[in-house]
């Protein structure tokens, strides 16, 4: 995929080129929105809004990391969604099971190749992490999602969240500390492989 050529075509109004870019980035965009929003439906809305905004303002893209620019659209869409939520608070709905009961974990999206034990372990981990992420202030959460989950470097995170590099460093350190504190509370629940995780083993 020649990203630069696709971006150039999209800047000339070629929607097909932009859709090719969307197919390439949609998983990252959705995951970012999901980790920031903590809700799949809201994340889908935010991702869609982000892509629409991105196409409309693609003429403002002046080079650099396209992913970082796209992530800025996502974070803006998430913040907009948060603002809407504040104005019109709604009760979050979990998807229903076949019995009509609410699911308490997102098993409907789990990898079908996982064994039940692995799936359960992954669910628990995901729940614990998402709970701790949700407990962070939004701006801390955004930074930690972009840096640690999306694997972006500091300058990309700064571009995506429109804050200076120094602020990124500071927010990331605080967010990691708070997450570590929060995850300590789940240590018993977490699978053993996640308890005292060493970077070298990852």
């Amino acid at each position, binding site marked *: 995929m020649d990203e630069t050529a696709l971006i150039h075509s999209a800047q000339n109004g070629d929607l097909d080129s932009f859709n090719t870019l969307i197919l390439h980035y949609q998983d990252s*965009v959705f995951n970012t929105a999901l980790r920031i929003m903590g809700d799949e439906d809201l994340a889908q809305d935010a991702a869609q809004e982000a892509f*629409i905004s991105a196409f409309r303002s693609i003429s403002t893209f002046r080079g650099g990391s396209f992913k970082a620019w796209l992530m800025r659209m996502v974070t803006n869409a998430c913040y907009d969604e948060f603002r809407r939520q504040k104005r019109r608070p709604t009760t979050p709905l979990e998807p229903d099971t076949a019995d009509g009961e609410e699911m308490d974990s997102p098993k409907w999206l789990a990898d079908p190749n996982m064994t039940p034990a692995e799936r359960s372990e992954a669910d628990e981990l995901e729940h614990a992490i998402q709970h701790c992420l949700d407990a962070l202030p939004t701006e801390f959460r955004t930074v930690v999602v972009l840096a*640690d989950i999306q*694997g972006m470097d500091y300058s990309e995170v700064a571009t995506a969240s429109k804050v200076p590099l120094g602020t990124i460093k500071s927010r990331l350190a605080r967010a990691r500390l708070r997450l570590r504190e929060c*995850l300590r509370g789940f240590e018993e629940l977490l699978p053993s492989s996640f308890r005292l*995780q060493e*970077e070298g083993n990852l």
Partner: protein
Amino acid sequence: MKNFRDIEQLSAYLDGQLSSSDSARIESRISADPELTSALHDLRSARGILRKLPARKAPRNFTLTRKMVGLKPPLPRTFSFFRFSTAFATFLLMLTFAANSILPRVSFGTAAPMAAQEGYGIGGGGSGGGCEEPCLPALVAPEAAATEAPSMAMEALPTEGFPSASEDAARVGETAITETPAAKEAGNAAAPQDQPEVRSEALIPASWQLGLLIIGLLSAMTMFSLRQSAIQKWK
């Protein structure tokens, strides 16, 4: 717990964001300070857990349609010409209707009072003879006055005892109908020439209006077909 400046340095060190000299400094401190080592371990552990978080696949494609982004098909250059001609022809057509409907009223509105004035002049002053020039509006109006006056006179009859505006109007009617034989003669003589002018007061001929209508419709239809073909090509 170390101070936050140390934590920030450790976090940046973990991500390889420190300069080589800062890295060397913090490494020597880490090796000498077990508290810093523990803090680094905590940060590394938190980052490791986040990185281990499974990435979800997007539950659907987020590709955009033209409708979603409000894109419109590129229209040919001639489209704007036809759009302008449609708008202009419609505007002119409306103008002709307006001109044809408003102008006669204006001429009637000015003619009637003058006719009334003339009536007073004739009836009140008794100088019925001087009617060559001033009577022209009255000649234009006789038909209107003749149609208006009887009804006005009939309305005025029951209130005869009260001098009022309606009575004045009745008098005007009477004078218009009965009092001026000279005017009558003049009117009779002039009526055949003037009446057609009064009746066919259309300032803009109907053929012009029809022409404008045809131009407007043709332009609109061409515009529509251009748009449709552009949409078809776009699809």
